[in-house]
């Protein structure tokens, strides 16, 4: 499990880790042994803590009840319970997600999904918390205008994984590249332009706060980056039953496209650039093995 792999990095950040589910201690022990899990897997076997937190999945029981045939209930079943239909197994489970808590138990951030099959990878949560990752499978490049490093938050992904491509950019001295808003002035905003795939969807890019640059020759104010910055291109692996059957047959997914940007210094604006990029991610199917009993 990815969370286990990130345990040391989280501990270095002073963060404890625990997971809660409705499984019995025996099921959790078996799972921990099979996967080498050392952090606490907590057993909330009567779902009381899940209910106390207010995140009990009530759609599961609704789907099994008298309104099970209601089209709205059916739609929610597919979103929150199972793409394979209502199942008594889900009754008592939470809506899956992650809370980040401070020392006093206050929520500092939370990561929940509106489709039960989509999950943030642990690395993606860490990126969003500003915890640095050590780049793995990184692409590095240098042009006349900038240096960049690009890498995926995870080298292997699964059905519904929400992960990121990370782009770290360092503009050359005196050089700036464009942030969102600059397109109004006719400039190319920096970002990935990836070829669409049926197996993943691309979320809007998360940009760092830009600075406003005054370009004297044209007497205009433009949002730019002049210092080192990072942007995140979030990607969600398709979690439909069809995508799952396609992914099950594949070992890897390659995302290809370009890193596009335009750079200017205080006198000259260079032509927009497109640098080819490609990221290959291993496909790992979820563990559907049941506990040994």
């Amino acid at each position, binding site marked *: 499990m990815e969370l286990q792999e990130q345990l040391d990095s989280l501990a270095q950040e002073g963060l*404890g*880790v625990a997971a*809660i589910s409705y499984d019995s201690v025996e099921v959790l022990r078996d799972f921990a042994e099979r996967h080498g899990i050392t952090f606490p897997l907590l057993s909330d076997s009567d779902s009381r803590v899940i209910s106390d937190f207010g995140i009990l999945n009530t759609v599961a029981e609704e789907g099994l009840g008298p309104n099970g045939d209601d089209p709205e209930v059916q739609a929610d079943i597919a979103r929150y319970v199972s793409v394979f239909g209502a199942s008594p197994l889900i009754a008592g489970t939470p809506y899956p997600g992650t*809370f980040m808590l401070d020392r006093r138990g*206050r929520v500092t951030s939370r990561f929940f999904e509106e489709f039960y099959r989509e999950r943030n990878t642990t690395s993606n949560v860490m990126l969003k918390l500003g915890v640095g990752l050590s780049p793995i499978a990184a692409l590095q490049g240098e042009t006349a205008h900038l240096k960049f490093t690009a890498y995926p938050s995870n080298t292997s992904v699964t059905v519904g994984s929400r992960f990121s491509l990370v782009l770290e950019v360092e503009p050359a001295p005196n050089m700036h590249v464009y942030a969102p808003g600059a397109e109004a002035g006719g400039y190319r905003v920096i970002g990935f332009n990836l070829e669409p795939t049926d197996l993943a969807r691309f979320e809007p890019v998360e940009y760092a706060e830009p600075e406003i640059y005054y370009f004297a020759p044209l007497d205009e104010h433009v949002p730019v980056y002049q210092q080192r910055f990072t942007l995140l291109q979030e990607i969600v692996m398709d979690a439909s039953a069809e995508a799952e059957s396609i992914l099950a047959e594949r070992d890897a997914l390659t995302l290809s496209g370009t890193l596009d940007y335009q750079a200017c210094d205080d006198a000259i604006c260079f032509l927009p650039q497109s640098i080819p990029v490609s990221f290959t991610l291993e496909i790992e199917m979820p563990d559907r093995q049941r*506990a040994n009993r």
Partner: protein
Amino acid sequence: MLALFRAGDMMQLMSNPVKHLFSLLALLLVLASAVSAQDSRQPVNVAALGPQVGETVPDFSLPDQNGVMHSRDSLGGARGMLLLFHRSADW
């Protein structure tokens, strides 16, 4: 519902306006409750469920995979913790 308005109703309405005002009100109430029953199912919005940013989560005491008890406060590191809720380790 329309069957309630028979031809005679209009006559009665004129002969006994107060009584009919009540039955009209009753009819409106029935209609209103029928509409609200249809709309009573709230769509799920997971983002709004459970403790929000800035709120304190409930304390708990639960056994781990080795039977060791843990609470919210015993699990936190110096800067807090990551608390994951998942569906099951069993399927």
